[in-house]
């Protein structure tokens, strides 16, 4: 079965990754990765540094182009339009359109530095979705409330702590009403005492039924919240299964070594 056919076959999944490979020059950052994610589940991805976790997330959001295989998000093949037996590359605007179903939270927050917390959140709905300002300001305030930062609406990112910035970044992504949220090590740039506040927001989000793909080193969080855990190494999926299996009683020695190293 070809990758594209497989992507089309599993239509209950919200994300289907089929035989995806990605090269950076001679380096194979992803090697024949296949994974499918059901709506409303939390998929955690763990693995050592350089194993391709970020690359996989970035491929789902088309921040990187894949070299082999195919990905479908929310029922649509990403990056290409299929015409008969040929695939046509999408334009910049069409790719931007496809990204609307996906929200992304970055390790280094990447809040827009020249905008306040509130402006960061309404920017997408305002300029991309072109919704009326009044309506989205009310929604943005509700989101700020939800991440516990209503009093910081007029603060610039440089005036916020790392944990606060990351919570605003989550609110910014949610303001676009995505069907899927991608988190790339959302807490690993934070001081230990700030990790909890971000994980709490993510826990609440998972409880609302949001589909989430989370790259994380927080094994405790993964065990508690994940529906399914994937362990990656050297661009490949080494082991996959429920958190109680992969995190507690892994079958692969590489997984076991990694978990032992993280827990020290």
């Amino acid at each position, binding site marked *: 079965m070809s990758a594209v056919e497989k992507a089309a076959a599993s239509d209950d999944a919200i994300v289907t990754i089929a035989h995806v490979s990605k090269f950076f020059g001679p380096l194979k950052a992803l090697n024949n990765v296949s994974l499918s994610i059901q709506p409303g589940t939390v998929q955690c991805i763990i693995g050592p540094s350089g194993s391709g976790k970020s690359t996989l997330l970035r491929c789902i*959001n088309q*921040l990187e182009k894949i070299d082999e295989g195919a990905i479908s998000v929310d029922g649509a093949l990403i990056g290409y339009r299929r015409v008969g037996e040929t695939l046509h590359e999408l334009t*910049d*605007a069409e790719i*931007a*359109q496809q*990204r*609307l179903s*996906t*929200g*992304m939270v*970055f390790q*280094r927050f*990447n*809040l*827009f*530095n*020249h*905008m*306040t917390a509130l402006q960061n959140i309404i*920017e*997408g709905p305002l*300029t*991309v*979705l072109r919704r009326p300002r009044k309506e989205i300001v009310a929604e943005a305030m509700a989101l700020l409330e939800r991440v516990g930062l209503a009093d910081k609406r007029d603060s*610039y*990112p*440089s*005036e916020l702590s790392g944990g606060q910035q990351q919570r605003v*970044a989550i609110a*910014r*992504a949610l303001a*676009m009403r995505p069907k899927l949220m991608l988190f790339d090590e959302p807490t690993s740039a934070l001081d230990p005492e700030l990790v909890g506040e971000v994980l709490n927001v993510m826990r609440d989000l998972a409880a609302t039924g949001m589909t989430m793909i989370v790259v994380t080193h927080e094994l405790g969080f993964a065990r508690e919240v994940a529906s399914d855990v994937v362990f990656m190494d050297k661009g490949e999926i080494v082991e996959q299964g429920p958190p109680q299996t992969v995190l507690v009683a892994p079958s692969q020695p590489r997984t076991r070594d990694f978990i032992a190293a993280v827990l020290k």
Partner: protein
Amino acid sequence: MSAITSPVSSRDLAAIARMRIVPRRFYGRWIAAAAILGVLGWLVLAFAKGDIAWPVVAQFFTAPAILSGLSNTLIMTVCAMALGIVLGVVFAIMYMSPNPVLRGVALFYIWFFRGTPLLLQLLLWFNLALVFPTIGIPGLFSWRTIDVIGPFMATLLGLGMNQGAYTAEVVRGGILSVDAGQTEAAKAVGMTRLTTLRRIVLPQAMRVIIPPVGNEVISMVKLTSVASVIQYAEILRNAQTIYYANARVIELLIVAAGWYLIVVTVLQIGQYFLERHFSKGRGERRARRVAVQEDAA
């Protein structure tokens, strides 16, 4: 001579804490100030005794020809700079585009206009009629080049296109100074490349772009004087016209210099406020705001 460091035991410290402090003496500053005052005094004396008719300077400072020259200088500065900035932004974006044709055009433009003297470019535009007696779209409309490209148009094109080539590099530097994470975050909320540039990257690049462009506005005020060679009636040319008639060369040059200084001073003040505006969300501004809040408390 005493040792540089003073050995101290913990027993002495309490006594030392109560001692009188003699501030450092800055003898160098006093000597430099005295020398500079001397030179200044000598200069003032020289100009007072020299053959300068200050009443003539005062008389011509607001003469109609000087004021109209001043206004032409300002109009040209604004128009040429506006053209330069628009071209600079457009060519910087073309330069950074993945499209090789656009990139090539931008490279050629920057190469050509940075690579030839401004005076030569002005003369080329002014004499364009020698190459193309008429311009327009054949069969639709056409004008005589001499009617279209007079001193004003030639100066505007010369200064503006030349400025655009320099500004393109400044803008490109500004765009490169913005963290790639900002672009990725913008893409992740669904912005297209142009929206990302307009809403996210350029506003942040401004902080880096404004100081050099401010410099260039100030250069442009003075560069407009080059246009006197192609008969554009800016302030220096009008001052020259007057002194050809009345032979008060130095007086009229002082008048022009005075006006240039006044304009440049005003522009510098404007630049300060612009820079402050575009430092939004940066550390310095935060410090100032916190200070204001503390004052208020």
